């Protein structure tokens, strides 16, 4: 195999990237009602929170390496946790490149070759658009709820918020390579931090929310960074420039023909 990218997993998926990570909420009811929430329910609630929510956002992705750096501007549409469409707008030579995710299937479109490619399982571990995210990160969905054993490590007060730190250990047969993941979620569903540990308890990579902002009346992590511990000078950053929630989606938005011929 030519490209052998370390595998990411069910924890962050595109939806997570776009939203879950940026988990926002106006009224987190469970946080006030339940004093020590069941960790599994905590994560489920975070997921549930986005079911049926639609969004349109404009984002910038920056890929940083020790000797170069490049940025993409992208538009993204999401509906719940199963559907998402991303399209690159800048720079010009990459404009039009798109990715469509439906459930666990993923397609990419490249205007240069005018072809839609269904990403096969063999390419799921490869990098998404050259970033530190793999295709799998982008396409995976809510398996984190059922494929892991969750345990609340601690809950601490941080300013006005409570931050829950949850340790998630994948089940024996889960399609997850990690030994464990540690997730820090704020009581308003903003995911502050997600750590990926290998089976020898060595931290491999982490995703961190470095800026939290209120956009369109919801609190989201507006800047997130994915970084591998073994290569300190390399990271990928996602910045949400603008986001609108509960937008009306055209019926044909999440279709292959729309991936090829944009109609918005």
């Amino acid at each position, binding site marked *: 195999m030519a490209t*052998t990218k*370390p*595998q990411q997993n069910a924890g962050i998926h595109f939806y997570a990237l776009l939203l879950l990570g940026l988990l926002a909420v106006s009224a987190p009811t469970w946080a006030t009602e339940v004093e020590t929430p069941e960790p599994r329910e905590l994560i489920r609630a975070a997921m549930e929170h986005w079911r049926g929510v639609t969004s349109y956002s404009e984002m910038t992705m920056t890929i940083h390496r020790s000797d170069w750096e490049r940025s993409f501007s992208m538009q993204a549409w999401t509906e719940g946790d199963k559907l998402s469409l991303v399209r690159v707008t800048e720079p010009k030579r990459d404009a039009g490149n798109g990715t469509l995710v439906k459930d666990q299937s993923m397609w990419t479109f490249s205007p240069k070759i005018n072809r839609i490619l269904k990403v096969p399982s063999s390419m799921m571990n490869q990098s998404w658009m050259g970033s530190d995210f793999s295709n799998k990160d982008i396409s995976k969905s809510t398996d984190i709820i059922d494929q892991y054993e969750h345990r609340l490590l601690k809950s601490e007060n941080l300013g006005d918020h409570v931050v829950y730190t949850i340790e998630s250990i994948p089940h*024996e047969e889960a399609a997850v*390579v990690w030994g464990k993941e540690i997730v820090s979620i704020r009581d308003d569903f903003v995911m502050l931090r997600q750590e990926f540990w290998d*089976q020898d308890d060595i931290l*491999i990579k982490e995703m961190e929310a470095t800026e939290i902002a209120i956009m369109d009346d919801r609190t989201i992590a507006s800047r997130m960074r994915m970084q591998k511990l073994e290569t300190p000078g390399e990271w990928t950053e996602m910045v949400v420039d603008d986001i609108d929630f509960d937008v009306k989606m055209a019926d044909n938005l999440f279709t292959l023909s729309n991936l090829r011929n944009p109609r918005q």
Partner: protein
Amino acid sequence: MTGLGSHFKIILTLSWRNLWRNHRRTAIMLGAISVGVWAMIFMTSLMRGMVDDMLNQGIRNLPGHIQIQHPDFLDDPSVVNSIGEPGGELLTALTQNGARSWANRIRVPAVIASERESRGINLIGIEPAAEADISGLPAQISAGRFLQSNQDKGVIIGAKLAERLETRLGKRVVIMSQDPDNNIAERGFRIVGIYQAELAAQEEFNVFAARGTLQKLLKIEGLVSQIVLVDHDYRDVESLYRRVEAVTPDGLEVKPWYEIDTYLAVMFNMMDGFVLVWVIIIFLALSFGLVNTLVMAIFERVREIGLIQALGMRPGLILYQILLESLLLLLIGLALGNLLALVTIKPLESGLDLSAVAEGMAMMGVGSVIYPSLTLYDVVLANLVVVLLGILTSILPAWRASQLDPVRALNTH
């Protein structure tokens, strides 16, 4: 006319004594012949051993002497080209009067991933109980255990692959493939065994899991990729092939190993011809020495030959005598050479370790230990070639000696 037979004793005595007149020259020639014959037999047995090993390994990786599969499977080994597990007449044939052993196998391309690396692999679903007879896998386990049942949830990977993935025994890996509807099929597996194959390429490429577990993962319950049959000897699978083919339902393809891997088949078929060519090449080198020895022996005896001709010996008997001399030389040389070969091959039959050049050998698909294989065919061939061609090359000098003019011969100094 009294036949040559009545003079045989005299001629034989003459030949034998002539042979030892210049005993140093004869000894050197004997040395040359015996070393030549030794080289023929010894090198041939080494080559046979190597090719046997190559064929055995190659066929084991196929992995059977005969395979039953979907007609498109060999061209496109994807999960779509699966077949049903054997049933009915075929199953009866397989279990009752079929091969020495048989098993179902699943074989799909897949990707294996650890925390740090991922690689493309050949995922093989096996039936642990049957596998022992079919491949050498159970014996190759170097750490951990072999799979225990058709539903075993573990996976066995090669030592080299473990190194590449930066993982080890007891850790979990994720294997990804596709089901027949092109949906991603993936699952975590714990590494329960590490195997060491003779060839590093296999270690890196073949990953083994239990058949039932893979059927569930790939959503192909009741389907397998191949039915593998192994008979007693790969050289003799024809009759089994006919029997199995007769009961195999339409839509399935039955193939013997020599049709699946034509490279191996060519190796196998070429070997006999190769041995012959090798024997003849050595003989050619040898024949120059032989002819030279005879020509010299005759050259020294021109006066003598003239004398016995003048005394009444017929040219035919002179020819006869010289050929007999050559034959005696050849026979003694052959006896020594055969003995030498036997003495050198016997101690090596437990294996000739060439681990120093193992890498080069692996490139040829041969393990690092060669087991010379001495076959009667090769020994007989080498001896026959030496005797027949040896006599043939002796005819010319002998014939010229018999045609000497006695008067001129007697006057030669």
